[in-house]
């Protein structure tokens, strides 16, 4: 086995590797030429409300969003012995993207629509259900969800579980009793808004945002009081400064983001009112700087030619004060987005040695194909390096911060454009990466997809014919549609990578024992050596995996690993939504790349929990 680069294309190869692991050769010390570096986690970023690292209180594990656990019982040497400890069926057949939570020996799972919250008692054999809470969201909400009726998880804070329902309610549920504490409607499905993101709770404020750029919504992030559910502030992603909570403390690093009311002036008249910029991804928090960080989604619903300008503040990242929502800085990944590159991915907060200095940075693997390292105090781009095959742009100008588009790859009606890479789901969509302070590496689940904009096709909504380009996605160079890789954010280079047949649409997890976990869309849950990238173990789950793995310490003192299986989401809509595999343009062209998925997995939500014997 190659110590540094591990390219496993086919499951058969993985099986062979596992077979090899049965022999004594697997227990030898792992050789690696990957540089192993201790990286200090900034004070407070591990989550000040988390005295016991054996729990899992929010999907990203902590405020720095590193999905790193200090639990060390499962190691590179014994991971091959992992066995199923128990399972739990959610009874729901749509895409399961959520991370389970573990608090006070109870596991909490939130399902896709109808957004049931289950509490499971970890102190009893088989973890029986303690209670379930059913918010009964309006069935009409299914009609406004763009990309399956997913939910990305809940958050625990001060005795309550907080999460969003597809029909735009944020709910607080008593973690002990399962009783609803408050339920606040924050959006309107009749306006095309839905909610899929996991809240982050910071200083008694529950931070939530909307989805719906495809339906002409105006994006926002809002803060609700954790005890009462009352709205404390709301910051829009488009429109006048006053609506965007941009005031005198707003000091963006680059000139392109400086000026008055850019959320209005970078659009045709009134277009900002339906301009998109939803907030459906991840939020991080730095308690020392007292700043939250989150990304904004693509502009809409106009095509690029119809919205000249940078379309602020879409496809970018805001730093805000969580107390009052005021913006401190903004940086735009994809000004005037051409390719549906929502800018909502995770940002991991770490302090890194860069050019001889320790810098407070945020690391963002972005949909447009670059790993960005930003100074999180100022929004300055320190580096932006491709982690995938890119044809749509030629780099990032570090002087201006600006993405340099390749005009040859911009699609418009009637113009056939081939090899648009990455495809619209990006080099990496929402699926969150993990960072190990132990190895200093980022663990990146991602896609390898390109697309062609082909012929014009007619369609019909609300009794009205319209036309668009028929978009078809397919595997990028190499023929594999997904990759799980380790990335060194200081050297700005890949350390190892594992090719996967399908897009890796699950989150990542990494532990101090150098074991990294992820899942595949055909249902394999995998453990790999975080240093060398070699496969350690895998288990075939009942349905494809697009969830987020977690690890926790059970009441018995043992380390467990949990993952939701249940294929769906945008990438898995062909299975969860029963789409016709012959219709390559289905799911906005994703079908074409996934036509073989129905042969390899079926839908069905099931939690799997693993442990050593």
């Amino acid at each position, binding site marked *: 086995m190659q110590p540094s680069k591990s390219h496993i294309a086919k499951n058969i190869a993985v099986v062979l590797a596992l077979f090899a692991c049965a022999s004594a050769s697997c227990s030898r010390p792992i050789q690696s030429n990957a540089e192993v570096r201790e990286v200090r986690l900034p004070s407070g970023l591990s989550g000040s409300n988390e005295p016991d690292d054996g729990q899992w209180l929010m999907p990203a594990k902590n405020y720095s969003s590193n999905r790193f656990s200090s639990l060390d019982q499962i190691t590179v040497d014994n991971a091959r012995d992992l066995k199923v400890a128990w399972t739990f069926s959610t009874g729901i057949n749509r895409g399961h993207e959520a991370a389970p939570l573990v608090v006070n020996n109870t596991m909490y799972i939130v399902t896709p629509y109808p957004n049931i919250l289950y509490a499971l008692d970890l102190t009893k054999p088989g973890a029986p259900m303690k209670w379930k809470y059913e918010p009964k969201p309006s069935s009409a909400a299914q*009609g406004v969800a763009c990309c399956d009726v997913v939910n990305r998880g809940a958050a625990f804070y001060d005795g309550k579980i907080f999460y969003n329902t597809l029909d735009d309610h944020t709910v607080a549920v008593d973690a002990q009793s399962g009783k609803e504490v408050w339920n606040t409607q924050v959006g309107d499905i009749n306006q095309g808004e839905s909610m899929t993101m996991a809240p982050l709770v910071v200083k008694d404020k529950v931070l939530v945002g909307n989805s719906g750029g495809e*339906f002409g919504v105006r994006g926002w992030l809002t803060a609700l009081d954790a005890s009462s559910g009352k709205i404390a502030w709301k910051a829009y992603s488009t429109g006048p400064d006053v609506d965007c909570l941009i005031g005198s403390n707003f000091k963006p690093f680059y000139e392109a983001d400086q000026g008055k009311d850019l959320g209005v002036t970078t659009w045709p*008249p009134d277009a900002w009112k339906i301009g998109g910029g939803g907030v459906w991804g991840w939020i991080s928090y730095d308690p020392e700087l007292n700043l939250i960080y989150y990304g904004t989604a693509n502009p809409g619903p106009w095509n690029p030619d119809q919205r000249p300008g940078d379309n602020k503040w879409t496809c970018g990242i805001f730093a805000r004060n969580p107390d009052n929502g005021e913006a401190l800085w903004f940086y735009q990944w994809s000004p005037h987005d051409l390719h549906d590159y929502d800018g909502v991915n995770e940002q991991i907060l770490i302090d890194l040695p860069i050019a001889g200095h320790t810098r407070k940075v945020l690391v963002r693997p972005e949909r447009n194909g670059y790993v960005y390292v930003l100074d999180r105090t100022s929004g300055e781009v320190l580096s932006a390096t491709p982690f995938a095959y890119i044809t749509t742009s030629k780099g990032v100008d570090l002087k201006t911060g600006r993405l340099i588009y390749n005009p040859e790859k911009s699609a418009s009606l009637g113009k056939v454009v081939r090899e648009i890479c990455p495809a619209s789901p990006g080099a990496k969509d929402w699926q969150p990466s993990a960072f190990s302070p132990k190895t200093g590496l980022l663990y990146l689940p991602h896609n390898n997809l390109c697309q062609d904009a082909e012929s*014009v096709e007619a369609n*019909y909504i609300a009794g009205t014919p319209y036309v668009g380009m028929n*978009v078809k996605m397919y595997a990028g160079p190499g023929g594999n549609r997904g990759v799980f890789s380790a990335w060194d954010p200081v050297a700005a280079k890949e350390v190892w990578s594992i090719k996967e047949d399908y897009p890796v649409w699950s989150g990542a997890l990494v532990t101090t024992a150098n074991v990294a976990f992820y899942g595949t869309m055909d249902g394999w849950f995998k453990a790999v050596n975080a240093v060398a990238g070699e496969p350690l173990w895998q288990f075939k789950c009942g349905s494809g995996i697009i969830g987020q793995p977690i690890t926790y310490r059970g009441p018995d003192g043992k380390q467990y690993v949990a993952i939701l299986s249940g294929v769906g989401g945008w990438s898995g809509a062909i299975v969860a939504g029963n789409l016709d595999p012959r219709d390559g343009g289905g799911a906005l062209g994703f079908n074409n790349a996934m036509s073989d998925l129905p042969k390899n997995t079926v839908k069905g939500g099931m939690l799997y929990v693993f442990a050593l014997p």
Partner: protein
Amino acid sequence: MYSHSLKFSALQSRRVPVACILLLFGFGPLLAGCIRQGHASPRRVLRVCSDPNNLPFSNSRLEGFENRIAELIAREMNADVEYTWWAQRRGFIRNTLKSGDCDVVMGLPSDSEMALTTAPYYRSTYVFVTRKDRGLLVTSFDDPRLRKWRVGVQIVGDDLANTPPAHALTNRGIVGSVIGYTLYGDYSKENPPARIIDAVAAGDVDVGIAWGPLAGYFARHEPVQLEIAPVSPRSEGSLPFVFDISIGIRRGEGALKQELESILERKRSDIEAILDEYGIPRVKG
């Protein structure tokens, strides 16, 4: 103007039998009132998927021209109409026709790839809508006044997709004074796509460019007199402004297609009368 008091919990899936729901097996006593006297077997059912809130096409009060044509066809088939209501948005065909909830959708472009379509039963066009009292009648995308006016146009929120007039304006660089009205609109209001016609009547825009059936119907219902004129050219490049509209059915249901086509042919004059009644502009040739 319209009453905005009626709230739709809709965008929804709700099945409402118009005559009655006929279950084919069992439940005899429950069905007693549903089976007509003297019939040994239950009547046929024409299952239609339809938007409950989208005049002039359809609504749950059966006031649309598609409701009327469905009734007409069902009568010819000796069948009752049963509706599945679902907002006609992205996923409509997938969630209704393709999932087997119904046999027909009453309107689809004839060259639609999503379903089998009958021979077209009308042909309409995008139109310019203006206020008659302002004397702003316009007929061509090349009219230079479009560059100065506030132009309202229907838009779609799909990536790279839009209504043909929205593309036509962009192709001419007419961007700065264009106001978009989404086909989705606010579904809590009645007939959400109609706001563009309200905007013309209210003077919010100088001209609106909308799909003929919507414009023709609502132009008759505004408090001020509106004029509509077909856009020209009829097409440019790959961009059509005139569309044939058919009934959509599932692929592989050739027998139903033939039956529907023969009824459409037989009842042509009745259908034309209904379309006239609703002010639907049609294009010949």
